């Protein structure tokens, strides 16, 4: 099996984007997961619905909504273009944002499940022993929720690796720039490059199975 430089570029872009997305979403995911698992506040159901919606929306729809928001005339994109002169659409940043939005619910789900399993009594016990809420989070909640946190991280990461619909909407399919693994499979199929399709599909499948296996290992005993 001989992998072409174009395929290597696609694979490494996918990994780079997934890692960047993880770095960006993980802290936010911890905060949102903690809020959803441990706090009651007005608008909690709304926040939950908002965070989870990419899970049920067709990715192409999420991508379209992002396109509207991030475009040169969009609410966020317009502001950034006018302030910094940066165009987000069709850039690698757009890929990172797209996969972040799509993978975020999976990350948060894992974190919420993990944190909900930590009894509030243990957290209260820690408070009575003199620990501030932040110390309780770091020393009790997070370590006891680690299975869910790791599970959500791996699932989110692997979702990021293979994201297609939202990415193609906001970042296009530019080889060497925004063409990730999934997008290059799409192109290869269209161009009838069967050998390339097989190789890419094979690599994707292996990555997905390893991720799933790791998730099971960490979340189940």
């Amino acid at each position, binding site marked *: 099996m001989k992998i072409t430089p174009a395929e290597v570029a696609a694979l490494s872009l996918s990994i780079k984007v997934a890692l960047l997305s993880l770095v960006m979403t993980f802290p936010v995911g911890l905060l949102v997961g903690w809020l959803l698992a441990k706090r009651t506040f007005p608008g909690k159901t709304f926040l939950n619905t908002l965070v989870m919606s990419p899970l049920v929306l067709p990715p192409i729809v999420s991508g379209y909504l992002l396109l509207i928001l991030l475009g040169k005339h969009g609410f966020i994109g317009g502001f950034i273009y006018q302030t910094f002169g940066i165009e987000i659409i069709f850039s690698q940043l757009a890929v990172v944002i797209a996969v972040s939005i799509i993978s975020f619910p999976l990350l948060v789900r894992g974190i919420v499940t993990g944190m909900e399993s930590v*009894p509030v*009594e*243990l957290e*209260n*016990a*820690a*408070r*009575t*022993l*003199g*620990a*501030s809420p932040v110390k309780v989070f770091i*020393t*009790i909640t997070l*370590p*006891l929720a680690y299975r869910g946190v790791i599970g959500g991280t791996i699932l989110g990461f692997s979702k990021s690796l293979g994201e297609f619909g939202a990415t193609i909407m906001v970042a296009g399919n530019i080889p060497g720039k925004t063409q990730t693994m999934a997008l290059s499979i799409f192109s290869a199929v269209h161009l009838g490059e069967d050998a390339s399709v097989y190789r890419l599909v094979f690599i994707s499948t292996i990555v997905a199975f390893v991720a799933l296996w790791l998730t099971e290992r960490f979340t189940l005993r």
Partner: protein
Amino acid sequence: MADSTRIRLNFRKSLGGFTLAVDCVLEEKVSAFLGVSGSGKSTLLNCISGTLTPDEGQIAFGDEILYDSTAKINLPPEKRRFGYVFQEGHLFPHLTVAQNIRYGQPNPRKSSDAIDVLEISELLQRYPKELSGGQRQRVAIARALAMEPRMLLMDEPLASLDSTLKDRIIPYLHHVKNAFEIPILYVTHTFSEAMALADEAFLIADGVIIANGEPHRLLTAPSAMPIAQLTGVENTLFLPVTLSDEAHGVTSLKIGDQSLVIPYTDVEVGDIVPVAVRAEDIIISLEPDLPVSARNILRGKIQCLDVKSERTWLSILVEWHHLAVKITHEAREQMQLREGLEVYCVIKASAINRLWD
């Protein structure tokens, strides 16, 4: 207790249809709150520890206000420095015993005295799941003490243990009481635990304090019959030893002109021994000379008779001691029991438990 460690409670807390409303001052070194489950004991401790916020009122420790609804003061639990021992221990499962104990310690490098007092130095490297129930509770107590608290709150620390284990832990609680100069608030539904440890007792029912005072006064008075019903026990007697016979396995106590035989206990003649008998462990007879194996047949007089929905409660005056006895309505009717009637209380020696003093 000095004024600086006196705790004043005057607050209300409603939780799902239930309301706790207390107004009291804890004056003694060990105060026990006695009540059945659901009477509001845990809610009380949670409000004092700060893990639950009352609806209104005030909580003060010495001169320091911990909670005041009008002044909008509510010190978070980590600032109150009250050691809290939970019924289930609530040890951190991912930390070893040593790490659990260090968790709240002001100086984690120093070894805590609590480790010696509770004799857990052998257990330090273990994880909570590798501990027995009794060991777990000892570690929980040590953890609360290691933080060098200003006060110790104990929520039924023995409730999850069987009675043999309880008897083994109670001496440790005595060590704690003697070794640490801090007030203790002890919550329990078990009469004998309150008797064994407390200097003052509060009876709590449906979220309200219904009586308080010195434990054995409070709980042995005839007026305490509803209390006996409430706590599921029991009669407590402080009696002098007349004979202690290890060979025959018995100890005799003097109750007026009569004697009470209990299983052998290591005491000297003349010692005063506190003992407890459950109300349902006393059999009422109209005849003194029964061919039964029970060692104690005490003569007494029915002083009052109280018909409740499930059982009849008798208060029987034996010499100058009152015994609460629980019998069925059927027995009362068939035996034609009434106030003033002379009866005999039949008690197996093994149904009489020595309390810790």
